[in-house]
């Protein structure tokens, strides 16, 4: 059975990637999961320097999901390279670094520094965090902004460049196309949906940051639809995510058009989820006589409903 896939020159052993911000820097999980067995590990978003993030409470639970406003707390790219990357390398993890910036120059600088570090497999450009006012999302919510940041990073690195798209736009497919035109090697989507929860007794928002990003199974059908829309307009690989909890969810994203997936929130609920997902995928392949998992990518049959209606 072949579960592998290709993103530019990079081969991922399988399509299961730990989602950024939901897996620490990866090293936190090295006793729980064999990091080398994952298709990739997307580490917590990194700026050039350290950041404290928002004041707690930073999360609140909602039906089948959660809101977060962590505010991209992080140790910065230099400490990451010195203090975390060596262990990730030792554990043979395929490291995807999620990079952030408040300016275009910061994205470029962080990308340049990581390109010189040994043990980084790819760069995921976080232009989609809903919890940071300056930079980031402003690139992700404008087509010229997306094009500009992707092409600027493209120029300074040979690593695969994977912009991560926000769902908080009217037409996500147009952003996928802008990213591809600017030289992206793949796209990942979705980041979280901007959302809010209020305590009715105190009239206060439940998050200190007032608003936060919705993730978890609650968002999955919307994320699947967005992957489907993007698949129709780009040729580059798509990394899909949003509420994946079971191997059927992984397969649903792939059939909609994703070449790989990330799992975030459900890793909080079950840190041992990875072997269960892998098992489920293998069973499915066996059941359907599949030898290469990539064969199912984008195979959603949208004519089926039509046919049934005509023949009845």
């Amino acid at each position: 059975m072949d579960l592998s896939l290709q993103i530019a020159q990079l081969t991922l052993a399988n399509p299961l990637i730990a989602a950024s911000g939901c897996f620490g820097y990866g090293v936190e999980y090295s006793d729980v999961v064999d990091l080398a067995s994952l298709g990739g590990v997307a580490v917590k978003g990194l700026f050039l320097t350290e950041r404290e993030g928002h004041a707690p409470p930073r999360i609140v639970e909602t039906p089948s999901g959660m809101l977060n406003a962590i505010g991209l707390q992080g140790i910065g790219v230099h400490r990451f390279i010195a203090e975390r990357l060596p262990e990730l390398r030792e554990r043979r993890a395929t490291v995807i670094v999620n990079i952030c910036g408040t300016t275009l120059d910061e994205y470029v600088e962080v990308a340049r520094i990581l390109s010189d570090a040994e043990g980084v497999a790819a760069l995921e450009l976080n232009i989609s965090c809903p919890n940071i006012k300056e930079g980031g999302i402003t690139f992700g919510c404008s087509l010229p902004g997306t094009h500009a940041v992707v092409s600027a990073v493209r120029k300074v690195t040979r690593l695969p460049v994977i912009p991560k798209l926000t769902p908080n736009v009217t037409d996500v497919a147009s952003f996928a196309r802008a990213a591809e035109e600017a030289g992206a090697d793949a796209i990942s989507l979705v980041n979280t949906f901007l959302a809010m929860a209020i305590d009715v007794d105190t009239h206060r928002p439940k998050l200190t940051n007032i608003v936060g990003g919705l993730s978890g199974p609650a968002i999955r059908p919307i994320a699947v639809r967005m992957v489907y829309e993007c698949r129709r307009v780009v040729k580059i690989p798509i990394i899909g995510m949003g509420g994946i909890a079971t191997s059927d969810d992984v397969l649903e994203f792939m059939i909609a058009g994703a070449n790989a997936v990330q799992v975030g929130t459900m890793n909080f609920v079950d840190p041992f989820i990875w072997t269960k997902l892998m098992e489920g995928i293998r069973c499915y392949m066996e059941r359907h006589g599949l030898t290469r998992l990539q064969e199912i990518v984008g195979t959603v049959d949208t004519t089926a409903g039509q046919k049934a209606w005509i023949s009845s």
Partner: protein
Amino acid sequence: MMLVDIDAAVIANRRLSDDYNVLAFDAAAIARSARPGQFVMIKTSRGLDPLLRRPFSIFEILRNNSGAATGVSIFNKHVGAGTSLLAEAEPGARLLILGPLGRPFEPVDPPAEAWMVAGGVGLAPFVTLAEALAARGTRTTLFYGARRGEDLYCIELFESLGVGIVLATEDGTRGVHGRVTVPLESALRQRTLGEPVKLYVCGPTPMMRACAGLSLTYGRACDVSLEQVMGCGLGGCYSCVVPARSDTGGPPHHTRTCIDGPVFEAQRVAWDAMTSH
């Protein structure tokens, strides 16, 4: 770290009041490796609602007749949807329980004495600590405060371990009239510095902050066990942060309670910057 996720059977649900119950699980693998003050993450439903696990201090280590650890219990205060489900759990039900997690208490040895200071649900981590202290022969006192006398629970558990008990209630219905810091401060005042005492504190943030202040005034070592909203318990999400200095000092940084705590040296915590909720 011997972290396991057990699909554990509930073996008993002792209802203490409308607000509290003690829920016991068949979970030997966690019970065997747990250290005092550590916690578990419990999935309160089988489905997606509530979605996230909830953190609970390990309240008791359950043992069979030959003394082997067979399970753990939690001290559950009913505050929301998840804890209410745990209030109603019946023996035989199965729930996922992940642990043991977190930085444990370090029990002191004689001749030092241990003073445990608990407020409300903050009683939870002290049974396991009291057992560890008793095993070392360390003299131990529990200062335990609540709003009303009827909100004080499980005192007999501590008495059976030889722990001295000092109670305080805000309405004066049991023990000293006032906050638990009132008898704590008078005890601290009566001690000469030659008699070493270490404080272990768990309770509402203002109470822990007050105890941290007292420990500084009276020159005593003090550890606090912090309770925060947690997403994962493993350091993955950065939700449970508190402003704390590193072991070597310096300015405070947002520090994860799940893996750097829940037990912190009290002076490491930047109490001024703590948000209590």
